């Protein structure tokens, strides 16, 4: 197990390095750089006419004139060595500061979503498989298909509207006005949860749909396995039997796809966040793209991806722990 973990860990680091290079290339893709915008912000309203030389000077000041590879090493070096993600141009502060709490909130949303996803999809998937071809099964399948097909931004918009109009729910943001600036406390955490459910439900729906299908399919397969019949033939009580034998195995594909769930959630997060007016990383990422604030975009993309890679790693370890066949396979 230790060796397995070590191997996976090294794999994770390599992937992270490659990912960072790719993220940097994406950061570099948009035409132009931040210098002209920066100049523009700096001198707007002052009546100063900005010349190309001024922009060039800013470029030098911001280090945008160096060759790309050098900047990559600068960038990744600063991140690894100093935890410094560079400069957030639009906010005139460091990326770390801009991201700050948002990373935490994003993680809260992520885990909220994952928890909802698994709490809903695993039992229901098992139930649907056990009740295969029943009315409940068809109902649940249809519901999950809808989760796949309904664009989540639409879902977000509709939920937002109804949550707001019918329940007068406090929307837009992750905290109520009173709690926004309060230090972290139990009450603030409660407040966060009260605000979290909407985005978490929106994001969880499609994830639930996927996982429900997976659990249902694996569970159906597992239910027909000889080992289940064999256990039943040994007189194992039905509920215990379902949990110990097929359900236990039906969880494996779920565990093995945690990383992809995270991926999917992060993928949908920016758009949902924009609709719901959340101020977390996804929304910031979109704004950073629109503003060409590439260090912010890069840092966020990197963080999100690292989180995914890390969760992949966790999922590998968990799976190996859950399924003794894996370790031996390597």
């Amino acid at each position, binding site marked *: 197990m230790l060796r397995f973990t070590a191997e996976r860990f090294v794999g994770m680091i390599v992937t992270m390095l490659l990912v960072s290079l790719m993220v940097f290339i994406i950061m570099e893709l948009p035409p132009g750089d931040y210098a002209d915008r920066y100049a523009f912000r700096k*001198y707007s309203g002052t009546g100063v*006419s900005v010349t190309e030389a001024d922009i060039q000077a800013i470029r030098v000041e911001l280090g945008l004139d160096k060759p790309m590879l050098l900047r990559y090493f600068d960038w990744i070096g600063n991140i690894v060595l100093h935890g410094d993600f560079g400069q957030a141009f*639009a906010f005139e502060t460091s990326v770390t*500061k801009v991201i700050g709490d948002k990373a935490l909130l994003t993680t809260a949303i992520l885990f909220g979503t994952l928890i909802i996803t698994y709490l809903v999809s695993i039992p229901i998937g098992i139930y649907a498989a056990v009740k295969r071809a029943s009315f409940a099964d068809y109902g649940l399948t249809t519901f999950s298909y809808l989760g796949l097909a309904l664009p989540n931004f639409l879902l977000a918009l509709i939920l937002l509207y109804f949550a707001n109009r019918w329940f007068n729910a406090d929307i*837009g943001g992750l905290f109520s006005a009173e709690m926004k600036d309060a230090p972290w406390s139990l009450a603030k955490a409660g407040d966060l949860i009260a605000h979290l459910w909407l985005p978490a439900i929106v994001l969880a729906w499609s994830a639930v749909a996927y996982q429900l299908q997976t659990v249902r399919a694996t569970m159906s397969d597992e239910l027909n396995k000889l080992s289940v019949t064999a256990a039943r033939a040994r007189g194992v009580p039905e509920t215990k039997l379902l949990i110990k034998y097929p359900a236990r195995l039906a969880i494996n594909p779920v565990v093995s796809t945690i990383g992809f769930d995270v991926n999917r959630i992060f993928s949908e997060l920016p758009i949902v966040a924009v609709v719901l007016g959340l101020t977390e990383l996804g929304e910031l990422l979109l704004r950073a793209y629109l*503003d060409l604030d590439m260090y912010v975009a890069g840092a966020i993309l990197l963080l999100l991806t690292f989180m995914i890679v890390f969760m992949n790693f966790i999922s590998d370890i968990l799976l190996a722990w859950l399924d003794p066949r894996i370790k031996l396979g390597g």
Partner: protein
Amino acid sequence: MTKALLLSGGAVLALTLPALANCPAVTVADLQGLSPDYPQQFELAEFEAKAACDLGFAENPEIAALNGEILGNGALPPVSERLPQEPLVVAPYAAIGSYGGTLTGLSRGTESGTSDLLSVRHVNLVRYSDDLQTIVPNVARSWEWNDDFTKLTFTLRQGHKWSDGAPFTAEDVAFWYNDVLMNPAVIEKAPGRWLFDGQPATVEAIDETTVTFTLPVAQPNLLNRWAIDYGQTFLPKHFLGRYLDKYNADAAALRAAHGFADEAEAVNFFYGNSDWKDVPSPLMKDADKVAAIGTAVMPTLESHIVVEENTEGRHLVANPYFHMVDTAGNQLPYISEINEEYVPEREVVNLRIMNGEVTWKQQAMQLNDFPLLKENEGKGDYTVALAPTLGQSPYYSFNRTHKDPVLREIFSDVRFSQALSLGLDRNEINEIVYLGQGKPMQTAAAEHVTVPFLSAEDLTDFTEYDPARANALLDEMGLARGSDGVRRRPDGKPLSIRITFASQGTASQLHELAAGYWSDLGIQVDVREVTSDEYRAAANANEVDVLTWKNDGVSGPNISQDVTDALFPGDPFNPKGHADWATWIETDGAEGMEPPAYIKRLFEVAGAFIKHPLGTDESNALGAEMMKIHLDNMIKIGVVSEIPEPYVYANALKNVPALTAKAYDYYWTYPYRPQQWWLEQ
């Protein structure tokens, strides 16, 4: 009428009978027979004299707690010591307010869309009254011009204090100009708007309350700038000066202790590089540094001061040293706190308004949301009303310095602009985009409602929808149609133009409609929406086919002291393109592109225009010529003018008058004295 007045006055008197010397609670609605020198406000002495009373002062009961939130502020002296000896006495619109509450407003982010709430707390030396005609005292209690408009003297209020309790004096004005704006060690390039014919003014503090601006050339309309400008012409010398070697022998040590590399960095950390206030605030830039320095933002004279800011929003509390009182002697502002939340998403903004969670919102409210907001007024317990926008008429201006010589040629032919103007069905545009509320009209470089030299009748040419005539004009230019119906340029290529626009400036529906009309004229039109930053960048870099935005900065008070927006390339924030012309003129033909004669003349006329007081015959003649140049050459194709826009306030917010304009040109709420707004609990 008089009887009623007397009666109500009597009632107030009766109520306040025990203290006979107390002053009448004068409101704008009921002036109780008093007539102030300036509309709706009094100097203390004037008020006491006119009402024959002795005004006692009262304060917000929460003020000590609020002061406690201001990092670095010490304990408060009594309110009478915090107010200037000569506070400004403000007549509330409808009633004396009560203290407390939080005003919740929304903006898009740290920087964009913030002027809505900036204007709520804004002060400047002078102000426009809500008639938008009269300049009245504010931070300055009076001003005086010399005869040839080259020297302006302001008299400040004795005993006026910054929000940290330090005295505010004439030195702070001089410091702003001499030690910051014109100090190359702090700001590399002196901002052109505070240079006059390229020359700096001389700003001198004569004594504690007297400051003079001596100008190299006559600037008869310059006072307007203080009345409408976002920029404040004073900075806390006691605060920023300590970082400058000139004023503090230990400045270098202090800078090092506070983590600043040089003078510029220190000043900019608080001042933010321009008069555009503390956006983003030092709290956003580096909260750790703020904690180390022990002051969150630099002291202010405004009604509220920022005490917290993060990427979610900012929080402000009332300034305990604010210089205004109401007619009952209560120190303003009434409202204790302001919450500005950064909500970039328009739908969330609308929902929160509809839910009654927003106290005040006017900037970036769009006309086509009006029906929705109006229908939900009752549920959200708010009021949505329309106010005229001054100068905000959308326009198209074809790039006559286009990099493509063929297009440049075509665009420079006035018949092209005439034809495209005739091709627009303005009535339909008005109906579809502006709910039928605007008026089809041309646009010139000034807002016709606010200047004497332009009227609506001047703006009717080529506004009728006449595709036949438009086609005839284009045919006459030799732009014949190909077999596919698309006109060909002289070089045989299809005539294709792209409208690049940002929805912050102009509505996307407008461009989709225009593209349709112009396609009917045989011109291939491609519409492309970009962010406002992208649009400005492209326009400033001469990379657009057609400039399209809404007029800004063209109302009388603005254009009379700053013709930038009537010229080229305009303000980089509101670009008018054609920078090559300006370069040619600035360099006397050494660089840039030679402008046509009418542009040369426009620059001449504009230069002269600014040197005459608005409303004089000379000013009117020059102004009219400027407008004629714009109109005759159809530099801009106006679409629809006099478009109203909605603004929203919670019904609990009191003393809000019907806005006479919703215009950046008068700095949004500044004329409506938000300090006397109050919240009914």
